[in-house]
């Protein structure tokens, strides 16, 4: 009854808010200067005919920009990924905590996550990239490739999350932003940003802290981060860029009175990267990059009834890498080839049981060469690619892809590709059961085909069919590690509308059928993500009034939830931002987010519940 009342109240309030907000949107008009110079459109346009231009690439890619990230008041990359079609977070807890995710049925450990070319996957920690420990402030855009992309990216069996950071502000010597928000359970996010350029030098600096007493029991976080980027202009429009990334996070992971345990973790990360881009000739660019850094992770589990540790693990990883590439050509006719080297030293320890598979030192070196091309004949573009890797201790994979796009009209594009790719195996624990590193990589053969069209006025539609056969997936049958073969196939549909009176709709539906190839049995949600998911968004923009709002719904259906799971309804979040212009150079923004509005429960394990309904509000000052 109480829930019904809340739901009714929520929908009525939302409708009222949106109706009120719509009123001033109608009043927007062109200014007098533009009109007097004949630069305004002859007929006033209330809605653009097409939501967006069609993309030209063969892969199924989704891009999200810093403006869209700011709209949803995201704290970390985990918050952003949760809103993207085809991507699903397993746990939605306190900002700054651990998150696992799936991309079109592929587990996050098969997805390469990188920031400005620096890989974030922790080979010594099951190849997972902790997207909940990547803050969003420094992000300019995130490009998510859904499906195998090894020919271009290397270990990317399930896709790529390519994070590109902001460049120094080019139009001022100094500008920046201060932001603070607070919400339930003392959940706070404090950030600052400073950016500017002089003649040949630019800088971008940001830092902040995310902390919380925990939106769920035992899930407190204390996350500090800093990021810097310095650019130097070289002759002939070349550029050198130096990036530094520092993060430190300690958190409670989970707690259970019933099972009498408490689980905590800590992460430390530091990296630096230097890249040089230099045009050698017309349509011929040279790129050089070097990177290095350290990752450390700790995990301690203890009894609640007495201060006894029963698990005390740590992993340390130092990495160095370098690469060189040449890109030649344009959109119609292009080649990109390059070489890469990467060395990763891993140190794993578990001090309580001291099992050999959790106590080892390992050094991995990878040497790669790749070549990717584009060739266009009329409306057809063919996109072949190949990559050879040599990895110490593991097998040497050959990855290749053959893609094509066919531009049927200016607004409709057919795309498809077939590829073979690989992913790094789990080295710790499962990968060391025999005392030696499992040599087999995890492999995929995949085919995708899709269409993207803005042919129907005011609608942009995209559909993708995908099939992936993956093998050498590590499992454990109680006695030994098994190497399983799985088939994941399905469909993804996306929709966007043009804004009408400031309102625009987005929607995405995904169906994934994931099965064990031998037995034919469906895979559980933990292994393959949701069987069905529906993401809905209603965005509102009123530039005149400086008001933006986003109402986001997320429905997920999993297979084989497990006995302690709870899964009801949709998760709805509302984000509202009101801009208050102070002058041309500075603005203030007030914002709030109401997350999990209907207080839905969605979790697979009872001591890892999702965050309940929570509210946060804050302010930003941009100068």
């Amino acid at each position, binding site marked *: 009854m109480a829930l019904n009342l809340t739901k009714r109240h929520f929908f009525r309030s939302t409708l009222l808010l949106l109706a009120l907000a719509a009123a001033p949107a109608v009043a927007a008009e062109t*200014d*007098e*200067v*533009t009109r*007097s*110079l*004949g*630069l*305004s*459109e*002859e007929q006033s*346009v209330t*809605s*653009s*005919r*097409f*939501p*967006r*231009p069609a*993309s*030209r*690439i063969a892969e199924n890619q989704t*891009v999200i*920009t810093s403006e869209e990230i700011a709209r949803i008041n995201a704290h970390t990359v985990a918050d952003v990924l949760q809103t993207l079609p085809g991507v699903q977070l397993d746990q939605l807890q306190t900002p700054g905590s651990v998150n696992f995710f799936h991309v079109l049925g592929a587990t996050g450990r098969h997805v390469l996550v990188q920031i400005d070319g620096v890989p974030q996957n922790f080979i010594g920690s099951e190849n997972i990239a902790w997207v909940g420990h990547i803050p969003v402030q420094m992000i*300019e*855009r995130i490009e998510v490739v859904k499906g195998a992309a090894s*020919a271009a990216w290397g270990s990317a069996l399930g896709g790529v999350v390519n994070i590109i950071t902001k*460049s120094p502000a*080019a*139009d*001022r010597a100094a500008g920046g932003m201060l932001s603070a928000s607070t919400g339930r359970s003392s959940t706070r996010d404090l950030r600052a940003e400073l950016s500017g350029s002089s003649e040949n030098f630019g800088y971008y600096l940001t830092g902040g802290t995310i902390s919380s007493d925990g939106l769920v029991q035992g899930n407190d976080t204390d996350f500090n981060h800093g990021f810097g980027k310095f650019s130097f*202009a070289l002759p*002939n*429009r070349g*550029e050198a860029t130096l990036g530094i990334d520092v993060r430190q996070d300690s958190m409670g992971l989970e707690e259970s009175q019933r099972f009498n345990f408490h689980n905590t973790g800590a992460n430390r990360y530091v990296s630096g990267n230097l890249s040089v881009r230099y045009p050698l000739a*017309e*349509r011929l660019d040279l790129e050089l990059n070097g990177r290095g850094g350290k990752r450390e992770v700790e995990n301690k589990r203890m009894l609640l009834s007495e201060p006894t540790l029963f698990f005390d693990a740590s992993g340390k990883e130092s990495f160095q890498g370098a690469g060189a590439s040449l890109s030649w*050509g*344009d*959109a*119609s*006719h*292009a080649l990109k080839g390059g070489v890469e080297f990467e060395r990763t030293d891993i140190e794993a320890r578990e001090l309580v049981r001291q099992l050999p598979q959790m106590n080892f030192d390992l050094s991995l070196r990878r040497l790669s060469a790749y*070549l*990717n*091309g584009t*060739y266009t*004949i009329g409306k057809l573009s*063919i996109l*072949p690619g*190949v990559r050879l890797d040599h990895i110490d201790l593991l097998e040497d994979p*050959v990855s*290749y*892809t*053959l893609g094509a796009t066919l531009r049927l009209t200016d607004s409709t594009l057919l795309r498809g590709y077939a590829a*073979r790719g690989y992913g790094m195996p789990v080295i710790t624990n499962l990968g060391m059961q025999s005392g030696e590193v499992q040599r087999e990589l995890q492999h995929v053969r995949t085919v995708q085909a899709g269409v993207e069209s803005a042919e129907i006025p005011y609608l942009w539609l995209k559909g993708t069919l995908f099939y992936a056969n993956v093998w050498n997936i590590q499992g454990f049958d109680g006695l030994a590690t098994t190497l399983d073969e799985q088939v994941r196939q399905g469909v993804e549909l996306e929709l*966007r509308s043009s804004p009408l009176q400031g309102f*625009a709709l987005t929607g995405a539906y995904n169906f994934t059928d994931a099965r064990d190839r031998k037995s034919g049995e469906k895979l559980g949600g933990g292994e393959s993500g949701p069987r069905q998911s529906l993401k809905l968004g209603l965005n509102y923009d009123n530039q005149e009034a400086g008001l933006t709002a986003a109402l986001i719904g997320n429905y997920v259906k999993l297979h084989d939830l497990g006995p302690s799971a709870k899964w009801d309804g949709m998760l709805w979040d509302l984000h509202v931002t009101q801009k208050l212009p102070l*002058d*041309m150079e500075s603005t203030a923004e007030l914002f709030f987010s109401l997350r999990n509005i209907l207080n839905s429960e969605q979790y697979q394990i009872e001591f890892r519940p999702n965050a309940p309904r929570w509210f946060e509000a804050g302010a930003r000052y941009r100068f």
Partner: protein
Amino acid sequence: MRALLLSLLLALTLSSMPAAWGADVLILQSSRTPAYDEALRGFRAACKSSGHTLVLSDYAEVDVLRIVKEERPRLILAVGDKALAASRKVREVPLLSMLSLSLNLSKRFPDNVGGVAMAVAPGEYLKLFDALGAKRVGVFYDPNKTGLYLKRAAHEARELGFVLVAEPVLEARDLQSKLEKMKGEVDAFWMLPDSTVVTMVNVEALLLFSMSQNIPAVTFTGQYLKNGAAAALEIDPFDMGVQTGEVAASLLRGEARRVQVIPPRKIRLERNESVLRKLRLKINGQLTMDN
């Protein structure tokens, strides 16, 4: 392995085959207006390179960075303010802009951005004021919108012996109260293309004031001559397109290295003879000129 060899062979064969290059110029047009179309006709007349045009107002959202990454143009042409704003994050490719009010009025742009400015150079206006016999010139401006231009104008005015009586206006409604301050202080008004100052109400008030005080008002568009402005310096969109096209062709040929902001070269003087007669003024000399 056969598929691998096939991919390699395909990549190498295709890349060695002769093929037409993709578009040299990515043209981002803010909206479909006759002025933009006219300027683009001029651009195409002077720059024969291939171009791919995207009209931004056709789309609710355009991710210009993605388009640039996919199209890989050698040059971007941003036509109008909306296109210039949408391209502000592009750094690797030279960007030329035309018919963009913001290009040289308010703030500086990255080194890869240039083009032909919309605003006529201050020196041309000062020649006109000289011809009108005005030495004290009143001007209203919003520092955030036309501050950069006014700074340049003030510097040039000082050097040429003019007194620029500049009054900042932060909100449109403030203009009318500030008009009174100009009484008896100026010999002419200079109306800048500043959207804070130039509203329909303010234009009416300013021109009424100029008539009542018997001082000429000079504007950036002939549109206001019928409302009582004495003269206007207008740009020619077609020639602005030709001028931009010449710069683009020079960049594409590799002759020019730096992207710069340059003033429009063809300026047309429009005058309201009846207002000039009433004010007993005569514009002397040849003021329509090619820079």
